[in-house]
């Protein structure tokens, strides 16, 4: 078996908001292996984003242990997490989160400026099929295009993992397909381990492995014997 990039054991997360506490994760064991394409499936509120944020170093668990290779993320401080995100992780968010005052190229350059040996921003945009939209501002791009810029921005640093939180959540089917294509291509061509969150079970078919979350727990893990391509997905 391929070596694991992430190893999470017994991860819990409790949000306290005044008197109410929300248990978002209730003891999750989770692995992500090198080069793997993984889909995290589950109903809204099941804890998918929470888990992904913890893996990506945006948040810390209440208890449990998360290893990135041999680094223990649970013991890292804020500065260490920042460095970790900068050097190893690529993020894609549901709402793209592009900087509106920067062009597509500049949004990508925002990342390539601060990491070592990045791709050229143009090459990254070419890879997601936006080589012709370099100097457009986010407001001049469609939702799908914006999301592909976000993917280019995430992969331009040549990250070891690509974490995508409902990348197609705000998109229609055709546009969503283009975005998923781009993600799949990165996974295939660059070998970047990829975890994609969705609540759309149809997307699960394109994964190597599917992890189902329900109510803050892992409800099942399923390995696809055969991956299907984006164009064959039944939406």
């Amino acid at each position, binding site marked *: 078996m391929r070596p694991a990039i992430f190893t999470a054991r017994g991860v819990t997360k409790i949000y306290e908001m005044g008197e109410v506490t929300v248990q978002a994760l209730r003891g999750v064991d989770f692995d992500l292996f090198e080069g793997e394409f993984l889909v995290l499936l589950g109903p809204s509120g099941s804890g998918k984003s929470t888990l992904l*944020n913890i893996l990506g170093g*945006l*948040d810390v668990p209440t208890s449990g242990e998360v290893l990135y290779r041999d680094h223990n993320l649970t013991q890292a401080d804020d500065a260490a997490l920042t460095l970790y*995100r900068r050097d190893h992780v690529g993020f894609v*968010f549901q709402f793209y989160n592009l900087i509106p*005052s920067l062009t597509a190229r500049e949004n990508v350059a925002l990342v390539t400026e601060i990491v070592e040996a990045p791709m050229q921003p143009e090459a990254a945009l070419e890879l997601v099929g936006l080589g012709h939209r370099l100097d457009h501002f*986010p407001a001049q791009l469609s939702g799908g295009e914006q999301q592909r810029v976000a993917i280019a921005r995430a992969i331009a640093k040549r990250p070891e993992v690509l974490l995508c939180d409902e990348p197609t959540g705000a998109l229609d089917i055709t546009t969503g397909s283009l975005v998923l294509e781009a993600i799949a291509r990165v996974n295939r061509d660059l070998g970047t381990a990829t975890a994609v969150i969705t609540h759309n079970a149809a997307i699960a078919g394109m994964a190597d492995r599917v992890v189902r979350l329900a109510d803050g727990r892992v409800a099942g893990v399923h390995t696809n014997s055969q991956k299907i391509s984006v164009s064959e997905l039944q939406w």
Partner: protein
Amino acid sequence: MLLRRLRILDRKLVRDLWAMRGQALAIAVVVGAGVTMFVTYLSNFDSLQRTRAAYYEEARFADVFASLTRAPLSLEPRLRELPGVTAVDTRVVADVTLDVPAMTEPAVGRLISLPDAGEPRLNGVYLRSGRWIDPARPDEVLASELFCEEHGLAPGDSLTAIINGRRRRLTIVGVALSPEYVYAIRPGEIVPDTRRFGIFWMNRRALASAFNMEGGFNDVSLALAPGASVGEAIAALDPLLEPYGGRGAIPQGLQVSAWTLENELSQLQTFGFLVPLIFLGVAAFILHIALTRALALQRAQIAAMKALGYSNGTLAWHYIKWALVIAAAGAAGGVVLGAWLGAQLIDLYNEFFRFPRLSYRLSAGVAAASVAGSLVVAALGAQAAVRRAVRLPPAEAMRPEAPARHRRSPIERVSTGVALPLAARMVLRNLERQPGRALISVVGIAFAVAVLIVGMAFIDVMDALMNEQFTRLMRQDATVGFVEPRSARAVYDVRHLPGVMETEPMRTVPARLRAGSRTRTLAITGLPDAPRLNRVIDRERGPVTLPRDGLVLSRMLGEVLAVGPGDELQVEVLEGRRPVQRMRVAMLIDDTLGLNAYMRIEDVTRLLREGDTVSAVALTLDPAEQERFYDQVKAMPAVGGVSLREATLRNFREMMAENMNLQISINVIFAAVIAFGVVYNAARVSLSERSRELASLRVMGFTRAEISLMLLGELAVLTAAALPVGALIGYLLGQLILLGFNNEMYRLTFVFLPGTVAWTWLIVILAAALSGLAVRRRLDRLDLVAVLKTQE
């Protein structure tokens, strides 16, 4: 393209600033206003201080001054031997009544001796025009520049002095300046009267023979070695002069011109520091508001950048740079404008401070300090906002902000039944939803009112000062001063002058007050126990009746000497038999001008161990007889000078008009600029926050007028709430400034009239209306699609 070469974050900075350029400009203007004032005032202060230092040095301005009745010249060598003394100059100085052509009221001339050969050893006389006097011609004089300008006198002209009862023609051959009369104030007056006080330098022999001073002198100046103790020199000088009627030596710092100049300078410094500081504080506050709001809109961007691996430090610096760029732009403009205004202002000081040359100089230090100060203030204003925004955990910031919890507003709940229009309901709910935010906006706009009040109230403050001094306190029309103290019969002589209605005797006596190691030399004023003309007034308690057996001191003098009611002072009289006696401080009064010490007139004469004597008579005049009074009093022997309330008031007004009015105008203009900046900023902030919501409403079919009403209604409510708050803040700031402003010369009361408040409100309402208009134009151009398409 320049932008290309910038780092990505800096490109973002430039574009973000450009997107909020109106707001950025408004803030930059506010910062610029503060910096302009800093530069204007402090560069003037700096220029005056340098000029003063250079002049005192160049003109050999003495370190110690003393006047006496008469001492023989043989005393001079002993003076030279005093500790620390490097130079001694003795002179003959006499005040005379002048008869100036085309002026009915009498003027005072001070005659100062010039050595027969060469220049004075100390207190050099600078010849502006004409020539030096010819020792062979006893009637030739040099005349002070201000007096000549005032009367259009030039070398070759002459005027008449009444010397020892005899009229004598003096011919002006030169126009001159002296470091002793940079600020020419007549003894016993509170403001300079350039029309009625002239300084004349004449040959020593001529002057000495007119005043029986041959082989003697009545004025001493000493120069001390650097580092020598002034106190020791005075302590050694006084006993030497005492047998000759020495009236107590004073250090340079207490010499009238030097003291006044110093007070003016320190006032310029506080004024030039505190007021701009307040303005900059306001700039920092609105920068804080603007940035807090702008950063709230960038929440998701900040989170994304953190997710991409940008550190808190990098992001914080990025946003602090926003503030710094804005402040730097404002500061640069402020330095340029301040240098220009400063150069204008210096001409004004030239009007009543006379230096051989007063040149304006903006030192690099002042410019750099102003810029650095504004950057620091901007960074301080920004840092709290930035820190809060950047600290937010990225996972949290990524989540869309929960929809605000709305409720029916209390006004709606109270007024059930009455259906408020939708726009009004939305305005109220919005304000209620974020009371903290509304409060900050209110405080921001209130600052606009406050700076205007601070700027404008000084007109009222000065009026109150004049009213206090010239209506409540000085009720006499004129004061006739005698050369020597005279018996009480002199009061009757004055009463018989034409037009004199009411008289009141005064007995002033030069004395040194000593409390421990602290001393002050001044004139104690003896007055009737309940004076009607020369009233003694406490700013709180009103007219004061002088108590028996005790001194009444200005509170400021009490502070200088560190004494309070019940404490004892040593009073060393500096004339006549020179008694020394311990006296009790009966009362401190909170008065307005100068440092004063009062006693009952009978207590003064008892202290002096003499019969009833007077040194001056205050009187009221029948206006119809004024001319005849002037004529006769000019000819009256033994009269040293006549001071006129009208003239004093006029001089005071002129001085204020020249000095304060320009400063006040500058303050008011910049306060107005700031008010506009603040209000415009408040309007723009709420526009950018609400544009999404308003665009959604437009999409739903609301008209432009309807959504404008919602936004502008909110602005109107905030402005209305800010007006009274601003008056309160303005009052507090005014008090604060006066704490720094009050000195030995003036004590001001911070007051403002309802009319002033009305003006400030009007200006702010106008600013709000114009800002509203600008915002309204933006609302009309709101790009619905663009606003809704991009997730912030």
